[in-house]
């Protein structure tokens, strides 16, 4: 696609510096190692391949989460979303989950979406925790605004973190009820919800960074809907 850089200079929003999110590794219930790491804009095309199968899966609202995440990642790739970041989870290089968010300003973070491809291992919970960790501990923000589009999300974020309902501001994802995670709430929840070891052993990180492997569409659909649709 031809790009007019003169016009792009007008269209592209200026971005602030975002501190990097250092990778970590988590041992899952099945004993496998989940590498959690921040990815760059360059990685978006391959991530979109991983999100695409979710676009038509109604189960547990994967369709709306998938469609919106797809658009957000594409918007980031095309420089149409300001201050976005993306963190992924990989097992042996395989993409198993994606979370993203952005800095609304220096103090306030916006949690966008959490998509777990491999289910039943609390990968979504681990990745959401990583996102909150990034906002509070690495970006140094005062609070994160969060909304939920699925009952699972509501249970995981609003209830497990004891989030504060906010009626004064609307989350940018729309008119759904908005909640906030404050630093106080984060650090209260951290001992039971935020885990991971750093640094990631070199051999694990090498496998993760060498390539983001994306399963084929049928496999992703099966992973999201469960084996044999269960």
């Amino acid at each position, binding site marked *: 696609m031809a790009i007019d850089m003169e016009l792009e200079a007008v269209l592209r929003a200026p971005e602030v510096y975002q501190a990097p999110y250092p990778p970590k590794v*988590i*041992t*899952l*219930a*099945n*004993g*496998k190692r989940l590498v959690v790491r921040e990815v760059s804009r360059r990685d978006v095309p391959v991530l979109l391949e991983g999100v695409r199968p979710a676009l038509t899966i109604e*189960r547990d609202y994967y369709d709306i989460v998938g469609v919106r995440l797809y658009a957000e990642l594409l918007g980031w790739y095309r420089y149409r979303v300001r201050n976005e970041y993306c963190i992924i989870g990989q097992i042996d290089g395989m993409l198993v989950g994606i979370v993203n968010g952005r800095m609304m300003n220096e103090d306030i973070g916006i949690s966008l979406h959490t998509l777990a491809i491999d289910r*039943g*291992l*609390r990968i979504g*919970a*681990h990745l959401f*925790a990583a996102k909150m960790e990034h906002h509070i501990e690495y970006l140094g923000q005062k609070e994160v605004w969060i909304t939920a589009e699925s*009952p699972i999300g509501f*249970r995981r974020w609003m209830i497990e973190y004891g989030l504060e309902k906010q009626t004064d501001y609307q989350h940018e994802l729309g008119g759904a009820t908005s909640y906030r995670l404050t630093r106080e709430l984060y650090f209260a929840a951290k*001992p*039971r*919800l*935020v*885990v*991971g070891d750093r640094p990631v052993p070199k051999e694990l990180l090498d496998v993760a960074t060498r390539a983001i492997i994306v399963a084929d569409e049928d496999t992703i659909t099966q992973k999201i809907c*469960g*084996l*044999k*649709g*269960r």
Partner: protein
Amino acid sequence: MRDVAIIGAGMIPFGRRDEDSLMDMLAYASLNALDDAGLGDKSVDAVYVANMGAGILQHQTAIASALVDRLSLFPAAADMVENGPASGASAIKNGLLAVASGYYDAVLVAGGEKMREVTGWRATDFVATLTHPLAEYIYGVTLPGMAGMFTQLYMEKYGVTREQLVQVATKNQKMGALNPYAHVEMVITREGILDSPHAIVNNPPVAEPLHLYDACPVSDGAAAVVLCPLDMVKNAKKRPILIAGFGQATDTHALQEREDPTDLKAVTLAAKQAFAMAKVEPGDIDVAELHDAFTILEIAESEHVGFFKKGEGGKAAAAGKTQLGGQIPINVSGGLKARGHPVGATGVAQVVEIVWQLRHEVSKERQVKNAKTGLTINFGGFGNNVLAFVLRRVDQ
């Protein structure tokens, strides 16, 4: 009284079956059992259907009549049996008595439940309706909560440890991963759910000291068996399995009214009755399906039926005595823990698993070698209504 055999057994894979209604699931499992029995176009005299919650969860009642209509089994007699999570075994008992008495010659027993169309907390509340309405339910007691308190007492009295509970969980999920009918087909490791500091997120507390992987999943599913008099089984398509013994006992509705809440008297009594009728001892059992809605229950029941002395069940599990190839393989199906627990289906599914084990039909990774006699324990309420069956392979 006539000896009664199981001549057909069928199931559908348990799990989250969004595409199927309760009646679909009951029909599929029933057809599998009827096909297995080789009845062809012949109908049955009666149908007993086990279900706990269709009236609440699906706003549907008269399930047995609906199943007869769905399968065109007219004019078979039809009854629904509701006995909480022990509904399945209760329905089989009713079928057994009807055939043993000589009143019916061919009986279909099906059990099913569709629990995943409501949220987890509504499903938990639905199951909690089996507790005492004034002494327990109104105080917010749930089954996980009750099991948590029971586990704490059991740990204090008998020294059961978290490590022993984890051993049960990993064993049953390993077997579930080998069972094509299991809801949860995922192997878990002790490191991932206990030893690793990350286990706090992987395996969070549900009702201390019980954690996520100590509890069975909420499942959809159905299972069915066909019963007939043993002496009428001629040229059976499959080897008949004799219901050699059964027992049923009750205990107080409210757990707090028991002299010792850790003493599951109804389990002991039901098992004793079944053993006596079958003329066997606990040591004669080759394979058992126990009601492990929570890991602690597998340990406690293994003691109460007499496989191990009180206080020894946890140690036996940790020593591998209850795994495939051990002294008494327990829940080689994955149990409720991994196969799943669609409450009305569970008691029937336990019997189906034992039938398949005694016919030596399951995959070799799960088959108990030379299994001839099996036991099931279906645990209703919190041990206030328990049924036991001893099944025996009939040599032809």
